[in-house]
């Protein structure tokens, strides 16, 4: 249950748009990213990867590589002598360094550390791997069929019905009511099947780290990640180290979008460091990023929805089949939870199937599972509206979830913002702007849970009265700015008196990774509470100085004040004055807060997009795009708008051009940004963000996470727009020109 944390207030700092504190270093090239960290005596690491989609490793001969001058360590799976008991850890180890079987094109099979990059490359070329190539499967529907090549036997959960390949490892079910009864009440029922391709997060910065690990068991790791505590815990778990002996420091981060919430190679760097006795730097090439880190899942989905003539959804059902890649896991359950989450439905059932294939282990990507959850649902709703001649915003409003609605995935909603986004869309000039020939307008809604989780913040009041704030989450979306702003707001001090840093794993308690759009909410909550803690201490110090009771002290505008006339007449003591004498009033002043933050408010968005389809080539041009999303409270509106725009931009890429393309040989054919086409600036219109603020009851300032919901509606919004522009319903992503042209010609 969300806590009742929210209190209405007038903000001084929160809601303004100050210059970002990391801006100058980033634009002048001084910011240190993963690959910018070096150490004396450092070696260069490199990883040998399987060229086969599926192959048994009969043997690896590293003797020639080890004989090369300058090669200081060569490792294979045999060097990882610690066998984790935990199956998740064992899977991560196997993914970082293949054991008996290479499970996908790009799977690591050996690694080297050498005194130069070119020697490391030569050493990789000298390693001889004896592969026995096995049958492979890279398509989700094929992988589910009995008789499909099995990636790993014995991983199927008991909830999977009979009749499927062992590759189907899990099945989940959600919903309430009886869709079949609902369909009987409908005036129109549409059932369609949809496919989406695997897409990569496309972060600019490839993975990079620098590792040391001595014979004393102490190690340091500098790494580009979304969660250095997670990296520490996983590396310790995989290598059998004590977490306290391994200190992990997060570098600046050049994008992650979920792809850096996992461990792909850091244990390898540590093992190379241990074996060589030297610091080892390991960096992925772009090719390696595509082949060996996780894209999100591809999907195959069936959706059936019934609607009355006046737009009421009477029954809804969906089956989601998603690729987990080479290891068990998967996010089909999230698709099954999110697909119908925007709607108030009497009869809704969804199921999700998690499917192993010979592809890289699927990773989180911005609202994992939700975009492919929403795309088929929102497409069918649009088609129902077309065929029943209904306004697609009216129809969605008619079915919109509200406070008190029992969601399709179980919980009952507190105050939520879906209706507000739909109404804002209706009254926006975009909705009524004229369209030209071959143009269409699409709308779609989207939902994301948002998350809280384990969080620690420390706030130090320095002797000069300035404030140092330590958080444990890499700043991927402006958290240093927003934490400083919330601390300044709470303390009543100017923003420039607060500096926030990302502390290493030895400096704070456990912090959940930067995921689930959790940081502004959860770390913000902890920041506010840490500031309140510091304020309590400062009030005590003032009370001590004045000789009055601490309860008789108020804190406002960055100073302690006597609470009222009865408290005594004392001039206010500013934070600076209190800090200056702290040594004499009890010692240094610091506040801190540790929490498993609950009450992350769910977030909804409505997107509206105009596209034009070239009827002769199938090319799609995005003409206009508007995002309506509930932010709860926008702490720094520039960043919030950036999140809205960024999610839409990634969704545009996913909808129109991005896809993992596999050949019949099971190899990835487009492991680079030339043929894996993320949108370039000229592909995008100015994406207009409209911020709505329906306060989250679970946060003191009403903040909701905003980072992920923005990628949920675009797939369907663009598909609906293109389908209306082209006059034919598109049901497969990406809507690349050959696919659109073929659909046009089939009409």
């Amino acid at each position: 249950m969300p806590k009742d944390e929210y209190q209405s207030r007038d903000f001084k700092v929160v809601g303004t748009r100050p210059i970002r504190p990391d801006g100058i270093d980033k634009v002048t090239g001084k910011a240190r990213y993963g690959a910018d960290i070096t150490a004396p005596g450092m070696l260069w690491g490199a990883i040998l990867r399987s060229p086969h989609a599926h192959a048994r490793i009969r043997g690896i001969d590293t003797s020639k590589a080890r004989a090369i001058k300058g090669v200081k360590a060569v490792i294979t799976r045999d060097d990882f002598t610690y066998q984790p008991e935990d199956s998740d850890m064992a899977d991560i180890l196997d993914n970082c360094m293949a054991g008996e079987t290479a499970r996908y094109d790009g799977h690591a099979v050996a690694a080297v550390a050498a005194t130069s990059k070119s020697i490391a490359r030569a050493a990789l070329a000298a390693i001889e791997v004896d592969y026995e190539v096995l049958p492979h499967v890279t398509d989700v529907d094929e992988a589910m069929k009995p008789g499909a090549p099995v990636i790993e036997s014995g991983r199927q959960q008991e909830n999977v019905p009979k009749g499927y390949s062992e590759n189907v490892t899990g099945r989940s079910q959600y919903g309430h009511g009886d869709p079949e009864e609902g369909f009987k009440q409908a005036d129109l029922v549409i059932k369609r099947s949809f496919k989406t391709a695997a897409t990569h997060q496309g972060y600019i910065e490839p993975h990079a780290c620098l590792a040391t690990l001595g014979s004393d068991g102490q190690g340091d790791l500098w790494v580009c990640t979304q969660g250095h505590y997670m990296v520490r815990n996983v590396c310790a778990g995989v290598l059998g180290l004590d977490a306290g002996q391994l200190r992990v420091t997060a570098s600046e981060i050049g994008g992650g979008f979920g792809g850096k919430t996992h461990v792909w190679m850091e244990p390898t760097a540590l093992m190379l460091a241990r074996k060589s006795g030297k610091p080892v730097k390991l960096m992925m090439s772009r090719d390696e990023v595509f082949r060996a880190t996780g894209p999100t899942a591809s999907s195959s989905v069936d959706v059936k929805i019934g609607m009355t003539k006046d737009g009421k959804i009477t029954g809804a059902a969906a089956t989601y089949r998603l690729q987990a890649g080479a290891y068990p896991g998967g996010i089909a359950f999230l698709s099954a939870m999110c697909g119908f989450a925007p709607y108030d439905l009497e009869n809704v059932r969804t199921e999700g199937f998690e499917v192993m294939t010979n592809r890289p282990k699927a990773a989180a990507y911005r609202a994992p599972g939700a975009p492919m959850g929403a795309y088929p649902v929102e497409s069918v709703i649009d088609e129902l509206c077309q065929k029943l001649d209904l306004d697609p915003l009216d129809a969605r409003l008619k079915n919109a979830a509200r406070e008190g609605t029992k969601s399709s995935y179980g919980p009952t909603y507190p105050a939520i913002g879906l209706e507000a986004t739909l109404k804002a869309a209706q009254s926006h000039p975009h909705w009524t702007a004229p369209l030209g020939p071959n143009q269409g307008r699409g709308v779609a809604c989207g939902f994301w849970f948002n998350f809280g989780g384990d969080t620690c913040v420390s706030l130090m009041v320095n002797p000069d009265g300035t404030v140092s704030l330590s958080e444990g989450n890499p700043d991927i979306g402006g958290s240093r700015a927003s934490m400083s702003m919330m601390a300044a707001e709470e303390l009543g001090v100017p923003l420039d008196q607060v500096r926030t840093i990302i502390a290493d794993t030895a400096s704070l308690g456990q912090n959940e990774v930067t995921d689930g759009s959790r940081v502004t909410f959860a770390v913000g909550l902890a920041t506010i509470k840490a500031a309140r803690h510091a304020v309590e201490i400062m009030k005590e110090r003032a009370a001590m100085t004045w000789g009055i009771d601490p309860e008789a002290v108020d804190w406002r505008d960055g100073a302690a004040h006597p609470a009222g006339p009865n408290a005594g007449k004392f001039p206010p003591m500013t934070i600076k004055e209190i800090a200056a004498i702290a040594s004499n009033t009890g010692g240094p002043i610091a506040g801190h807060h540790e929490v498993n933050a609950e009450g992350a408010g769910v977030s909804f968005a409505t997107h509206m997009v105009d596209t034009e389809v070239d009827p002769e080539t199938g090319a799609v041009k995005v003409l206009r795009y508007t995002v309506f999303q509930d932010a709860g409270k926008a702490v720094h509106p520039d960043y919030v708008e950036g999140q809205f725009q960024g999610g839409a931009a990634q969704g545009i890429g996913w909808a129109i051009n991005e896809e993992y393309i596999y050949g019949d040989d099971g190899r990835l054919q487009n492991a680079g940004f030339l043929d894996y086409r993320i949108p370039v600036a000229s592909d995008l219109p100015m994406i207009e963000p409209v911020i709505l603020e329906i306060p989250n009851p679970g946060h003191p300032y009403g903040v909701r996470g905003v980072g992920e919901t923005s990628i949920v509606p675009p797939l369907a919004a663009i598909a609906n727009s293109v389908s209306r522009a082209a006059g034919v319903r598109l049901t497969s992503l990406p809507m690349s020109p050959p696919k659109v042209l073929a659909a046009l010609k089939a009409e």
Partner: protein
Amino acid sequence: MRFETPTSVDQAVALLAADPEARVLAGGTDLLVRLRAGQVAPSVIIDIKRISEMTVISQEDGGWRIGAAVPSAEMNEHAALKADWPGVVEAADLIGSTQIQGRATLAGNLCNASPAADSVPAMVVAGALARIAGPNGTRDVAVQDIPSGVGKTSLGKGELVTSIYLPPKPAHSGDAYLRFIPRSEMDIAVVGCGVAVALDDQGKISAARVALGAVAPTVILSQSCADTLIGTTGDDAALDALAAAATAEAKPIDDKRGTIAFRKDVAGVLAKRAAKIAIARAKGEA
């Protein structure tokens, strides 16, 4: 690996002839990418940008000689060249990004011998000649005869292209190049098409050249496409015939960038659209 910076064509030829593993570096927009990817490991890299005659655009016998080291950005800012051969300049201007165009060259694009090279169909329809220097002296070759297959050229041992010559622009003529890419820039042609036409005094097309890129191992210079235009005014019927001919002439493959059916269709669409632009330019309308 050695890096050489000859200052004369003769020096470059001598270096190139001495080592079969030597590679010529002009802009480096293909070579350096391959080097970094580990796809090539030349023993010698011969940078031709210090050879002064290869870095200039000059008028010659009414046409234009473009040095092999001239970046496309310089062509794009050369008003007189652009006025004569806008299709060639625009084709070069499509390659890569602004940064890439500060380096990328016509000759490099030609000798890289990619089927999808943007400038090549445009040069072919312009009737461009490549000047080749080698151990046996200098010769001029039609640009379409340089690429002999995917990544292969007809250049002999020790030979390099030193310049591209665009002939004098015929009276009442125009050229154009269009390509199809899934994005709006920073991409590689899925289909490319160059068209050049000249009109007679009555406004009828008296000469035409049509070249298709990315639909065969090397550029297709299509007489059957040209024939659909010659003798017509470039009316809708002629353009439809051109589109059909281009679709028929294209011999593409299915790959990650497009299907056979898509490329054949789009070859027709681009031929028609490029012809319209070329005709308008010939009439002085564009």
